[in-house]
């Protein structure tokens, strides 16, 4: 099975270790993984900013870049939802692309959902001591209906205890451009999320989306909240030599 890894721009630029962790997990699941060099961004920033033409151009380029893959997998609920949920509606009014976008969307997956649902992965060989609260990114949870999948695999990580946030699956306040347009609101929402995580006794927040994690880790670091942030792919792949997000080497 030929799987195209959609790296996502944040992972590419800021935290390649998530990309390599994804690669390892996909290979462990028996996939032949390719990383098309012509990929850049899925176009979501343009789409959410109301720049439909840019979003369409980037959607078409992404579809073309992954045309020869059986599946396209992204280590991000947000980018995967863009490919899987929004491409078909974005390109619905273009006769040459509507069907292509629909067929493409059906082959796109968020990493952990793909591992569990398509590849039937049920165990991982990784170890991490600590107590983790899993933060469902809004796109993964509400657009892709992913909830059980990451919990099922994280439960297999040796030494890791999982806690539920119990805050009604509230957003962390990242929201892409939202968090720089209205930084005070975004920070306030994140503060509540960090507090919810601390209340569970967790020393770690794990999530599927680097955007949320950069925002949460950045606030925790600024405000001295002792909680580390890690991407689910790193935890599942045992990629824990890299310091947690926003933390220096010890």
């Amino acid at each position: 099975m030929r799987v195209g890894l959609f790296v996502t721009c944040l992972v590419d630029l800021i935290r390649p270790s998530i990309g390599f962790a994804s690669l390892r997990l996909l290979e462990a699941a028996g996939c032949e993984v390719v990383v098309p060099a012509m990929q850049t961004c899925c176009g979501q920033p343009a789409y959410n900013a109301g720049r439909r033409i840019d979003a369409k151009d980037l959607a078409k380029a992404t579809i073309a870049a992954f045309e020869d893959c059986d599946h396209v997998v992204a280590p991000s609920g947000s980018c995967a939802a863009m490919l899987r949920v929004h491409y078909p509606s974005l390109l619905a009014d273009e006769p040459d692309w509507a069907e292509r976008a629909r067929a493409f969307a059906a082959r796109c997956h968020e990493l952990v959902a793909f591992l569990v649902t398509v590849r039937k992965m049920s165990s991982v060989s990784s170890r991490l001591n600590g107590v983790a609260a899993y933060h469902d990114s809004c796109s993964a949870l509400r657009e892709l209906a992913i909830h059980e999948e990451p919990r099922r695999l994280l439960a297999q990580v040796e030494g890791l205890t999982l806690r539920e946030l119990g805050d009604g699956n509230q957003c962390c306040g990242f929201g892409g451009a939202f968090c720089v347009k209205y930084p005070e609101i975004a920070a306030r929402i994140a503060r509540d999320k960090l507090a919810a995580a601390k209340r569970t006794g967790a020393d770690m927040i794990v999530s599927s989306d680097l955007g949320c994690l950069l925002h949460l880790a950045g606030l925790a670091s600024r405000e001295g909240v002792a909680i580390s942030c890690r991407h689910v792919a790193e935890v599942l792949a045992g990629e824990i030599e890299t310091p947690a997000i926003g933390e220096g080497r010890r």
Partner: protein
Amino acid sequence: MSEPLLRDFPTAAKRALADAALQQALANIPAGFQEKRRAAIARFPEWDRLIDAAVHIKNHTLDHLDFYLEAFEAKVREAGGGVHWCRDAGEARDAVLAICREAKAKRALKSKSMIAEEIALNDCLEENGIEPVETDLGEYVLQLRDEAPSHIIAPIIHLNRGQIADSFLGAHRKYGKTRRLESARELLDEAREILREKFLTADVGITGANLLVAETGSAVIVTNEGNADLTMTLPRVHIVIASIEKLVPSVGDAWNVLRLLARSATGQDITAYTTFVGGKSRAGDADGPASFHVVLLDNGRSEMLGSGFRDMLRCIRCAACMNHCPVYGVIGGHAYASIYPGPMGAVLTPWLAGIAQAPHLPNASTLCGRCEEVCPMRIPIPRMLRLWREREEKAGLSSRSSRAAYSLWAFAAKRPRLYRRLARLFARIFSRMGKDGKLRRIPLGSAWTDTRDFPAPEGETFQALYARRRKP
């Protein structure tokens, strides 16, 4: 009420974040609304089926709105009521005023109505020598404080008991009340005592309507205080003001929607008072008004039918969207400076006021999708917020610097080779600027770093590392 300053959203939001009393009040939303709603739905297995049916009812009604409106009008007239078709707020105010003048009204009772807010009815009545008296406890408090509601079903959610006691102390002195009250019970009793006299001496009662029923020509009004029932039965004249999308075809349809409304709004199976009212008092009736009027407001809604915002017309004003919105939850309703706050307001207000007047509202959302998730009418709010953003972009309403930044980014993102080089450059620069894994300040990046550290990039892009790894 002062003129809304929709453009000042960022300033108002920051003020709200720093308002300790407001923050304390907002902290009650999860237990007060979210948990009650969740529990009500959990003990109601028909929930999803009822939603399917209600969405169908509303869509069907909107498809045939002209037909049902005329059927409704015919029924109201049959029962001896008047129907007043109003294109905009001005016409609606004029219609209400004309009815009040004909009745030689000096005092008008009001039960809670968002349409009255939408058309700024109180100001109009006051200017014309008619005293409007809000009878909903929350609205009454707002009237004393000269404030707008901050929530569509809990208008004083932003206030605490102490603030209300202070308002009562200031306003009730003229009635000989000079003690600062402590308990909610005392506050309620005092308001009731003062309002009672007004109930008995008012000439006109004005209510909103949660629904209009075409089959019977009735208006349906739900409250938990019973004040609306007094407002519509004690005065000589009863005026219902409602927007045209409140219509449903039949009484059965109304019940379908009502079962969703109470649960979604307050987590109640049914509100304490649910009243179907229509026409003037008939021979043999124990009470009721001598004349009955329905003021039907369009105010842009018929045009909305043919737009990308049509789904918004299904809204039943349950407020679940704002009760579950992470942004509303930390800034409250006043920061939006809009009659309708929160997610549904962010869709509706730009339509009513013009997007140029409300440029922030569609952007002040993380698009987390919780509003759509909890909406009992399945209104795709995030999709419509994006649609507004698109219109803003087309109309050139976003800032020049933001447009330039997006254009540069898009230019690069469409050129993979250039993009890879730039990404490597940025990854290196920002990585070197980092200390202990983070950047405390980024030039031109204060929008991030004023409030948060920025986690430093690892130093090399994934693409570059991957290409290197592939080469032997």
